[in-house]
């Protein structure tokens, strides 16, 4: 059997990779995908703990996280499409109109 620790370590690695992607990438859609990667890593931790403790409550919460991620992705991508049309670029470093 696979020990729970292995799943938690994998979840931490994926979360860390999500943070690295969020910090180092410049395309706004890729930043969004890094957020989804972080949410997925957290989902894995939830399911692993739910199995370790023997209760299905963690899996129910994972379903809610997936639903919230879907709603956030839909509205977020809508906003991205509008701002990209106005600014004609998907590079977040170009969004510097308020810079001194």
């Amino acid at each position: 059997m696979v020990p729970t620790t292995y799943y938690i370590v994998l979840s931490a690695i994926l979360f860390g990779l999500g943070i690295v992607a969020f910090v180092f990438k410049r395309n706004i859609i890729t930043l969004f995908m890094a957020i989804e990667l972080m949410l997925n890593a957290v989902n894995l931790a939830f399911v692993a703990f739910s199995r370790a403790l023997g209760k299905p409550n963690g899996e129910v919460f994972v379903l809610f996280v997936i639903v919230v991620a879907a709603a956030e992705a839909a509205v977020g991508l809508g906003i991205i499409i509008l701002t990209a049309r106005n600014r004609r670029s998907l590079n977040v470093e170009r969004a510097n109109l308020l810079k001194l």
Partner: protein
Amino acid sequence: MTASLVIFFVLAALAVLGAVSLILQRHPIHSALSLIVVMVALAGLYLLLGSEFVAAVQIIVYGGAIMVLFVFVIMLLNDGEEERTNFSKLATFAGIPLAVAIAGFIGAAILSSSSTLPAATANGSLTSSKTLSMLIFTDFVYPFELTSFLILVAILGAIVLAQREN
């Protein structure tokens, strides 16, 4: 080296490779494809943990709807590959040691508590969909109704955002 350990390592390697590929790819469409690989690998891990319904929902909703949305947006707003710029000195000299320190801290926290976690997972039993649905509609009915309201708000928001200006 039981079969489940082998399957776990294969799926974990696939997920980590997908995540690394998301960082290293230049065109966002390839990053999206790597993220889809990560999600399918995670669905396999959920199956290994015995939650078949969550695995199926992960593929149907995350892999079949959310990522399709991402792929559509990338195809429509085809901005091309990313430009290469140099990172600031601050990021390299302060950021990397800080990242290593945080990773070490999390690793130490996990390893120190591993003795208090229940020993192993998955005694081979599956969580039936019936158990999950009983929980959703009895204990968690209030969050369930709230998330359906959230989806309604998201739909309205998307419609408002997609309107053309008259």
